[in-house]
């Protein structure tokens, strides 16, 4: 069986599971059966694509089904680019299914989740496999609707209905943009097969329009600022393993769409396009993490951090476009590989963190960080796995997040080779924005972990929590191990990505696995090199040596006592730093500009025993500046048009008659 046929069989299996879930409906065995089977199918699909990718992905295999447009059929194709994204999807799918085996038991309405979960996975697989515009759009819409149904799974919880509504509007808007983009790509001849689009010549005007439409279509799904507004609403509303899939995986499907069109179908990218992508990417990275810094809802914070990481990936893709447009093949391969590697890494740690948030939610019923705290004592395993995720997402060595960001910085340092002044000036500024985003991410995840897992419990739920089930823990620990592995053996991942770069750019990064001591060398050793394995070994050795020497030759005595706190230790747990107060310095430095943040303190006069009050005013300028006016205009015009619903029959008839006459007149003048 060819590789693509295997994938299609897996997709059919997933769709069959969706149907089975409807049949099983509310029966008790539904949860283990569906998640178990989804896990098995995902693993088969994962093995198939991994084998295809690692064997070099030399020849793409295609499959045509006699459905879809009558004169076209539905084309599916497995090439290197698709196989990489299938790895991301199926790995995420497998870990989410494993997590679901345990987490699903706590679901109040499993019959609203189970049918859509495998369907959502099938939809994502199909988008990546699709090889003609019609199938692509159909599968894209299927994926969107399946995820929308999952967002609405707990539709009675406050806020979820609104989240679903905003998501539906934004998803429809995105699909509309994609529809127009593919319409332009198909050209006047209207050939919707990707092979035909690839072969056609596209005018610069059409290419510009396609860029804008793709940024609107794929960008809204990925969460590019200012199209991100649905993401922090919808991702947290879904059950946690679905949040992990939406944040960790579905955003990657959007990135796949962008890469497929901009790098593959449209031919050679142009450098002005890269300026736009770099600009949007860097704004997205910084804004995303600043939003996350201001947030105190655990899952919304993670969703905002997804926006940041999408920004980082887009910056890297923008760099790849800039280098490719100028024929700097090695640098383009470096930036492109870094983008894919970061997308892979993000799928690891973001899934892990959402699983952790789900575990916290199961154990305490709380998503508000300011009611949590001290969970490291009551959930030791979860807290360890989440700590790994936090370190990895903060781009700290020796974990994987650092390696991909390091590769992106190395790509940034190639920018002096670029001939265009706009890019020369822009790229260092973009690099500084990335550094700012990385530093803020570290701050943000110190806050997340410190407030949620460290300190003293801020509420009874946090004080009485217990550890979660083994399936959930297994899923988290597998992802934590992957974060470490990708961090200390990045050469394997880079070499695994080489076929994708070769297919898309026609060049690849130097072979890494042959380097001494397994270091990675993006361009040349005299320029830069990094060895995660040795860093890890050195840190472990130095720390163990210190522990041994001190405990052997100095002191090992230890006494427990009350916290010192400068003699002021008996304060209530409410006196600890909270998520809001931890963010105060950064809110003051960046928030006054970005969010027009104001702190209002109401201080009672001396002698008055009422508590002082702090009110924080934050304005989401994107929402207030773009979406609120649009909503106002729509609301205003619909109120005005509302009168049309209450006319007499005579007036309706005259209205119809007037319309008919007008249309006939228009036709007469037209021809």
């Amino acid at each position, binding site marked *: 069986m060819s590789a693509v046929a295997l994938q299609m069989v897996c997709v059919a299996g997933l769709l069959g599971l969706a149907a089975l879930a409807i049949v099983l409906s509310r029966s008790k065995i539904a949860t283990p059966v569906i998640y178990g089977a989804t896990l098995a199918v995902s693993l088969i699909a994962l093995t198939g694509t991994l084998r295809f990718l690692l064997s070099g992905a030399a020849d793409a295999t295609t499959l045509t089904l006699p459905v879809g447009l009558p004169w076209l059929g539905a084309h599916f194709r497995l090439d290197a680019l698709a196989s990489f994204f299938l790895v991301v999807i199926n790995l995420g799918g497998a870990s989410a299914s494993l997590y679901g085996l345990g987490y699903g038991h706590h679901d109040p309405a499993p019959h609203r989740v189970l049918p859509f979960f495998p369907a959502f996975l099938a939809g994502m697989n199909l988008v990546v496999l699709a090889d003609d515009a019609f199938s692509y759009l159909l599968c894209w819409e299927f994926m969107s609707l399946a995820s929308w149904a999952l967002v609405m799974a707990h539709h009675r919880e406050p806020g979820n209905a609104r989240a679903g509504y905003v998501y539906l509007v934004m998803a429809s808007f995105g699909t509309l943009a994609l529809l127009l983009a593919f319409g332009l790509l198909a050209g006047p001849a209207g050939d919707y097969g990707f092979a035909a689009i690839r072969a056609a010549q596209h005018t610069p005007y059409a290419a510009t329009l396609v860029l804008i439409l793709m940024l609107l279509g794929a960008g809204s799904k990925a969460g590019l600022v200012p199209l991100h507004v649905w993401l922090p609403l919808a991702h947290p509303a879904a059950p946690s393993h679905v949040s992990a899939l939406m944040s960790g995986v579905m955003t990657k499907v959007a990135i796949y769409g962008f890469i497929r069109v901009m790098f593959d179908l449209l031919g050679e990218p142009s450098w002005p396009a890269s300026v736009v992508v770099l600009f949007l990417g860097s704004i997205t990275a910084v804004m995303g993490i600043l939003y996350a810094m201001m947030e105190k809802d655990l899952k919304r914070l993670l969703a905002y951090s997804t926006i940041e990481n999408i920004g980082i990936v887009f910056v890297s893709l923008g760099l790849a476009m800039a280098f490719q447009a100028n024929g700097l093949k090695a640098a383009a391969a470096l930036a492109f590989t870094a983008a894919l590697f970061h997308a892979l890494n993000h799928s690891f740690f973001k899934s892990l963190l959402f699983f952790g948030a789900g575990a916290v939610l199961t154990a305490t019923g709380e998503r508000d960080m300011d009611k949590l705290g001290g969970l490291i004592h009551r959930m030791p395993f979860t807290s360890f796995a989440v700590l790994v995720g936090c370190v990895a997402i903060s781009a700290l060595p020796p974990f994987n997040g650092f390696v991909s960001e390091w590769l992106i910085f190395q790509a940034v340092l190639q920018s002096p080779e670029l001939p265009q002044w706009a890019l020369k000036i822009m790229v260092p500024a973009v690099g500084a924005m990335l550094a700012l985003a990385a530093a803020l991410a570290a*701050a943000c995840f110190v806050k997340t972990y410190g407030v949620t897992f460290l300190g003293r419990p801020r509420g009874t739920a946090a004080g009485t929590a217990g550890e979660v089930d083994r399936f959930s823990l297994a899923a988290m620990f597998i992802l934590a191990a992957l974060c470490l592995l990708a961090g200390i053996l990045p050469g394997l991942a880079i070499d695994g990505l080489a076929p994708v770069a070769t297919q898309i750019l026609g060049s690849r990064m130097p072979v890494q696995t042959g380097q001494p001591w397994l270091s990675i060398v993006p361009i040349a050793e005299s320029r830069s090199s990094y060895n995660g394995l040795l860093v890890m070994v050195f840190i472990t050795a130095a720390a163990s040596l210190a522990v041994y020497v001190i405990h052997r030759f100095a002191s090992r005595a230890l006494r427990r006592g009350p916290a010192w706190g400068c003699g002021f230790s008996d304060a209530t747990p409410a006196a600890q730093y909270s998520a809001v107060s931890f963010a105060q310095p950064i809110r003051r430095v960046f928030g006054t500009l970005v969010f027009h943040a104001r702190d209002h303190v109401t201080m009672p006069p001396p002698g008055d025993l009422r508590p002082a009050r702090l009110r924080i005013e934050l304005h989401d300028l994107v929402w207030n500046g773009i979406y609120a006016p649009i909503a106002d205009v729509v609301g205003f015009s619909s109120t005005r048009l509302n009168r049309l619903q209450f006319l007499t029959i005579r007036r309706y008839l005259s209205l119809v008659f007037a319309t008919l006459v007008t249309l006939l007149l228009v036709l007469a003048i037209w021809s």
Partner: protein
Amino acid sequence: MVVISDIIVQGVQMLLVLLLAPLLTGYVRKIKARLVRRQGASVFQPYRDLLRLLRKEVVLADNASWLFRVTPYITFAAIWVAAALVPTFAIGLLFNWTADLIAIVALLGSARFFLALAGMDVGTSFGGIGSSREVMIAALAEPAMLLIVFCLALVAGSTQLSTVSHLLASSYVGLRVSLGMALVALFMVAIAENARIPVDNPATHLELTMVHEAMILEYSGRHLAMIELGAFLKLLLYVSLIACVFFPWQIALYGSGALSYAIGAGAYIVKLALAGFLLALFETATAKMRVFRVPQFLGAAFMLGLLGTLLLFVSRSF
């Protein structure tokens, strides 16, 4: 044999930074005391402090977790590894290519990440205030540091410290405006990263004005010793960094023999002494600034770094 001698030289460097770090801090303290006409403690006082702390028992807060107990060792190890990767007396050592300048900065970031977490572990307000301010300072210092790295990489065509140092030691680079700006910016970042005056005061005992010290308020005994030693190493690291990039005179080449290494080591000691003296002079001459003035201070470092980088884009000869 070559590998063994390589490992020995690398090991010498690791021990050298570990042993010299407390001395540098003691020396800076001594100079500061003399500048205000105090006698001051002996330059060897930091060693005595460390030994005293190491022998004492640890008093651990009741709800301190395992993270609180491992953090001192993790931070110490991360900073020590970073310090050992910055060239001191010789360049091109065995493991110098393990991490470039970006990775060294990130290693320090790892250390800070864990310290900031430990500050929040016990659940007192002082730990929280220290952590939140520390991460704010870091969020401002890191972009500035990255622009300095850009500036150096544009001049030297590498982020590998050994290569940068080797190239800048050769006469053909000469004086550059951009390097001057990078030096000033790096100095400002180093002040902030090491919690020195005017950003933070390492000697204060007023909790509300502390940043770094508030974060580690709950530590005692051997844990505190590890954190203190880490802080000493970090100061040494930044001085070594400035020395090896901007003043790489007499730094020994890899495999150039014992005499050359000895000259390199001597020059290194002289550089440390000079840098320590200038740091003490600067700290004595300035007053600590308010916390919310720090963004302006680091913003200036950021702008200097950006200006230096842009100048290099205009012309490579700046």
